[in-house]
Structures are given as C-alpha cells and as structure tokens.
C-alpha cells in the first residue's frame, strides 16, 4: 500500500533503442513495468526473488534480474530485452543456436537463458565448459538438464566467431 501513498512518478529510459517514459510507482519492479506498462512480455517471472533468471535483461550493458530492480533505479538507463535481440526477422546467432541445438524446451527460461548466453559470449567469445557453467548458473532451467543449452552456447560461439572471421574483424560484436 506504500506505493499508493507515495504516488506515481514519470521515469524515462531507453528500451531496445527507443526512448520511453512511464508513469509509475518509483518502487515498482522493472520487471512489471516492462511487462505491464510496455507490454514487453518476453521478460518472464519465475520466482520474484532473483533466483531463476527468467526476468533477465540488460541494464546499461549489464545483465540483471529485473524482478530485483526498482524502476526508479533505471531512470535514464539503456535497457535491452529479448524483444530487441533479433534484427527484424533475422535471429541473433544465439537465438538460432538455441533452435538448432535444442536449447529451448518449454521456453519459459529461454529469453533469460539466451540473454545470459549473449552476456557470457561478450565476456568469453570462446568459452570453456567451466565458463559456460559459471555464466549460466544464475538461470534455472527445469526441462533440459542444461546439456543442450551448453551445446547451444558452443554452437552460438562458433557461429559468431565464424561470422567475424568471414567479415574480417574480431571483437565483442555478439
């Protein structure tokens, strides 16, 4: 009820390259603002306490659990959600890899898992097994046993490196 007492405020941030302003309670969860105010429902809620990673999104380039972020903290931030990852109809290499390697089953953890993979590959373009396990340990999946997700990460890493080799430049373009 405290949220009601304090009233709503206007908060502006950039989501998937577009500047957005929302009128909301300052302590509203970024997760709810994305899902309910902006109708970006690819960001999911699995636990509401930062354990499962289904609500992962990038805030200023850092992957966070949006269920733990009061929206006031995102004022002026640059936010990237799963909806902003593909380029038009062309899937991001990580998304394609999750299809090809069977990394998605029920799909509810998939947006968060895909973004966690993007974050992992930005840091480790050629990750070893320990880095993959560590990089995904904050995202829970109950369907796959993670094995095909590990395969998806490796597939994506190869695809991104191959593309960069072909285009003649390296660096963290993932």
């Amino acid at each position, binding site marked *: *009820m405290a949220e009601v007492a304090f009233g709503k405020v206007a908060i502006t941030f950039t989501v998937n390259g577009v500047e957005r302003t929302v009128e909301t309670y300052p302590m509203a969860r970024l997760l709810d603002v994305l899902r309910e105010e902006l109708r970006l429902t690819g960001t999911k809620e699995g636990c509401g306490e930062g354990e499962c990673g289904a609500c992962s999104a990038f805030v200023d380039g850092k992957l966070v659990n949006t269920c733990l972020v009061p929206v006031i903290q995102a004022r002026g931030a640059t936010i990237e959600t799963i*909806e902003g990852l593909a380029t038009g109809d062309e899937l991001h290499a990580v998304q394609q890899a*999750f299809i090809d390697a069977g990394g*998605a*089953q*029920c799909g*509810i953890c998939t947006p968060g898992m*895909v973004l966690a993979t993007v974050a992992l590959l930005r840091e480790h373009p050629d990750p070893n097994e320990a880095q993959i396990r560590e990089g995904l340990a904050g995202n829970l999946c109950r369907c796959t046993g993670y094995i095909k997700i590990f395969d998806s990460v490796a597939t994506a890493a190869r695809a991104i490196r191959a593309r960069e080799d072909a285009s003649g430049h390296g660096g963290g373009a993932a």
Partner: protein
Amino acid sequence: MGKYVGQSMPRKEGTDKVTGRSLYVDDIVLDGMIHGTTVRSAVPHGRITGIRFDPAIPWDEFVIVTAADVPGENVVTMLIADQPFLAHDVIRHPDEPVVLLAHPDKHLLAAAREHVHIDVDPLPTVFDIESSLQCNTLLFGADNVFKRFDMTKGDVDAAFARDDVVIVEGSYETGAQEQMYIEPMGMIAVAAPGQGVTVWGSLQCPYYVHKALKPLFGLPAEQVRVVQTVTGGGFGGKEEYPSILAGHAALLSWKAGGVPVKIIYDRAEDLACTTKRHPSRTRHRTAVTRDGELVAMDIDFVLDGGAYATLSAVVLSRGTIHACGPYRCPNARVVGRAVATNLPPHGAFRGFGAPQSIFALERHLDHVARAVGLPPEELRRRNLLNRGDTTATSQTIEEAIDLGAMLDDALNIAGWAEKKAAFAVHNADPANTTKKGMGLATFFHGSGFTGSGEVYLASVVGVEAGPGGHVTVLAASTEIGQGTNTIFSQIAADALRIPYELVEVAQPDTARVPDSGPTVASRTCMVVGRLVQDASEALVSTLRDATFLKAGDYTAEQFAGAVDAYLERFGTLRIYSKYKQPPGVVWDDKTYRGAAYAAFGWAAYVAEVEVDTLTYSAKVTDFVAVQDIGTLINPQLAAGQVEGGVAQAIGWAIYEGVDWREGHMANNQMTNYIIPTAADVPPIRVYFHSVPFSYGPSGAKGVGELPMDGPAPAILNAIEDAIGVSIRRAPALPEDIMEAVLAAAGPTTSEVNHG
C-alpha cells in the same frame, strides 16, 4: 522410416520461444480484465467457525467468492468426489483455498488478502505415513487408506520357506518433490450465467479441466471451453491442480458478471499449495539363492496421498506394478497402499509412483547382491527379464528386449570396472577427504495408461486438410516443452507424404480438438502419436478413394490439388482416428494380473559420485543413461527428455528436500528449495538401443518418465559405494549424509540377513 521421422527436426514453435513472442498465460491481457487471488487456511486441520473481513478494507470494491457462491457442485472429482474447490466446513490441509478475491489493482488485492481472517477450531493432525497407518486419528474411511492393491504371483510363502535361500530385508523412503516448472500456475477465465465458461491457462490436460468445470457450474459440455496457452513446463504438476485454479478464476468471473479474471500464482503460493511427488515408504523382504537367483519378493509399498484422494490411487497402481522391476522372479507379493495425511494433496509428477518403488528396489538389490557376495551388476544380470519371461503381473514380454546388452553398454561406457578399482585405491587413502563411488540401476517404465486405462480413455485424434494442402493436427495433447508439436508434425508429414512445413498442430482448445486423453504417462508419442499416424494415413486413403489422388507417389502440389478438389466438392476434409488396443493386451483389474502396459521402455543407468567427507555434500560427476524407447521420432528431442529427466532425478536424489512444518512447506522459495543449476549437473551421456515397438508410430514408445526412475537409486548406490554407509532415504542432503555417517560410526543398524 520416412523423410522426417528419425530426424532432429527443429522445434515447431522454436522461433517464438527464442524471441520471447510466445504468449504464456501471464502475457495475455483481456479488455477489462481484473486480478484474482486466494485466501488460504493457515492451519492443517480444523472446523471453520467463521470468516471475518477486516473493516479497514473497502470490500465493496472487491469481488468476493466463498463456497456459498458456488452455482453447482463444490467438488473436483479425479477419482472420488472429496476435494472442494473452496473449503466450507472442514479444513484438511494447510494452504487450502477458502475465499477468493478479485480487484483491478493487484497490489491492493495482495494487501487485502491479509485482511481476511478464517476462524478455525483445530482438529488432530497426521503428517506422515506411519502415523496415518497407526490410525490414532482417522482422516479417511475406517483406516486412512485411500486405496489398496494386492498383487501376487506364484507362492511367496513357500518360496521364503525354502532352505536354500538367503532372506534380505530393508526399508526405504523417499521425500516429496516439487515439479518446479519455471512458469508458475496461472489461469484466465470469462464466465457468466447464460454465456458459459471459458478458461485459458497453463495446463497439461484440457479435458480434465473441462470435466471439472461442468459440475462446478452445472453446465453442459458445450458451454464450457478450455484453452491451453503456451505452457512453461508441467512434469505432471499441471495435470490435476489446474482444474481447481480454473474453477477459482471462473467462479470470480461468474460472480463479477463475466468480467475477465486472471489468477497467477507467485512462486511461494505455487510451492505451498500445489501438488508434489508422493512421499513413500517401501519395505522389502527378498528370498535369493546363494548364486543370486531372485526367488521371491515380498513388498509393502505405501504412498502419502495427502489430504484428498485426487489421483493417488492411479499413482499407487503404477508404483505397485513397477515395484518388482524388470526382473524374472517367480514369486512376488506387493501390497500397495495410499494413505491420508494433513499435507496438501500429493499428485502427478513424472514417473507417477514408479520412481518411488523403483528407488526402493534398486537400493535394495545392492544389499541383496552383497548378501550373496555378488557384484551389483552381476546380481541384476542374472535376473533381468528376457523375451518370453513374465513380469510381476504375469505379463509375458512379447516384444524384443535388449536389457542385458544395455547394462553391458552402460558399464563399459561409464568405465565401471576400471573406475571401481581406481576409486577403491583412492578411497582407501585417508588423505583423500573426497570419496568416490559408482552406482547403477536397471529398470523399466510402462508407456501409456495402466491396464485397461487406454481402452477406457478411447482417445481420438483428428487431422484436417485445408486449402493448399495445409494440414492441421487436432489433438488435446499439449506441448509443455517435451516436443508434442514437433513430433506430431513429423509423424503426420511422413504419413501424409507432404513437407513438414505444411503441417501444423492446433492449439489445444476443447471447442476445436477432440479428447485425445491427458498429456501424461509417457503416452503422447506412443499412443496419441500413433493416432496421428492412423488419421493421416486415413486422410490419404480418403483422397485416393475419392479419386482425387492417384495411386503411388505424389508431390506436395498434387496433394494440395487433391485436397482443393475434395474441399470444392465436399466442403470439409477432416478425419478422426480412435484408439484400438493392440491384440493380446489384456488386463484383469480384479486380480491385478495381465498386460499392465502395451510396451515398456527399458534402461540401464550408471552414476559416478563424489562425497566430500568434510562438508558431507555429494556431487554427481558423471552419468551414463542407456535406454530403449523404441524408434526415435526425433533424436534431439528424445535426448533432451532423457537429459532433463536425469537432471530432475539428480535433484530428487541429493538436492531437493521439502521442509514440512505442521504440513506447510516452509521452504517454499527457489532460494531454499534447491534445484540443480548449470553448475551442478554432470555430463549426462545418453545412448539409445532402439528396438521398434510394433504398435507405436513408426515403432516408437514413450520416453518422458523413464529417465526419472533410475538416477536416484543409482546415485544413492554410488554414495554407499563411496563412503561405505547405506543411506536408505532420498533425498540424501548433506545433513542426511552426515547423520548416516555419524550413526554408522556409532552402534550400527544394518540390514537384517537371515541365512
């Protein structure tokens, strides 16, 4: 095999899932929709004396529903009519629903929920199997037993009286397990007098929900519609509880005059109130000859059903039938009982009773092997079923079976002999505080409903052809991650001999799809998939009979032309197929004998573990899973099922413990109910021996549940191998391992061996 069956075709709805475009129930917003919530009992057992609404809340803004508002029968009937949608007189478990509230603002709703007080006069409570069996407090009938099965084969008492057998006894337990689908339960309903009831939600069995809603509102079938939205995992957890949740959302909407109502559980509520895997206690008494021939098994198998009967009897049935495993044993007696307690009702969870009874058997067989001085693999090898042998229900195995070769494969792949030798040396060195061990399990799992179940279900599937030769599969089988959409499309495309891309699977909607039975029991591929194949073949025959399609091969264009011609002439092309029991599959419910299942999946699993003797934590370091599930429709999806099942079973074995406090799950958060993470799973190495099943689609059997059965006993066998201490209860959490080790260091209580 055809063009698509046998290939790892990409998941049909894969693009929607990786882009976040898939709409799960909480992603759907209807015009004017308000939110619903549930007020639940705080006590485990008692008589309701009053419901008080705190005047601090403006209740006139809320929709309020109690049992008094139910227009029809306030009971959901899985097998017997005992569980109310809303408790009205007696509370039988903690977190039982009593009052429903709805309001446009879900924040106000959450706050208001705290201001409804349910007054209860407490009644005596029962929280575990032994207390229930003692009957000091009666919760159900004359003996607290929801259901009892007696299964017998041969002459058990005569076998135990033989003078050439060793008798080995043991008692084993398993704890509750939470399905922990990552998408919590949710439902949207639009319901009003005169307009009927429609619900959309996260569920496995549309027609179960349909069946539950009709009497709740006193409506005929055609005025109730159930639609499955994209579902974020089920594992059995969304088999029966969605009927209750759908009823709740619909009752609120009905009271509100047709305003759409959405109820989404948060994780804490989902964990506290929805069904879990039944806790179990199994006592084994086994007669075995000195050269390891199993002569008789006497098994007392008990499940904790919780506060209501739900479908415990069926879970018990499967557990009872699987209790003797895939072994040749001429004499067997299994008594299975499901008993009442004041815990929330336990329910369906992948494996459905079989993991519990197989856990006990496969742990016990290691002790039997030791009693006769045989290695565990050798005892099993000497008793595995072969073609022509009979199971404990006296079912003769007619299909080919390759379990001995699978066991050998699993041992070789895992490096069993070499590692056992190396670990013995490693463990003998006191400087090594981490002890290593290997364990195995051989097991089976029946595909499809038990006994006459599939005959009673009489499932139906439709296949409809539209303009341009686009074909839609009409089935109530739900996609819950396991790949229903994909395998049905593969099976249909091959049977129709058209491109995979031309086939789609309709969203399960009782207004559109026939009742193809529930999405449970490893039946979707084998039973319903076969109906997809049959209906597709019948559709081709229809086009040929109508002479729009010539004999022999045809192209996609010719198929499309034939469909278009048919539609122009007759309007609709929709073919249904109905389940037919394979010949020779005969079951007697009275004697509990006969063909329990048309087909079995078979498996041999090997686990390698490390146990840290300082922290007492166990870790699975390698896992080999060899199985026969018949022909693989989609190898990638099949392997994904096995990997996911093994990981879930690893959780049950060493991580996932429900902390019951007066019947309430105290650790109802992901923070303290621990499921395996990416950092916890071992390499899971999956191998298939594919022995085609004559009556499955292209020879396929079921896969979903099998991988849940074997890992827990294999892992606890491996833990015993590592530390030399027998742990007879799953999960083996660090505190359990510590207790067992400390107890073993003191006065010992090992199994009783009679010579």
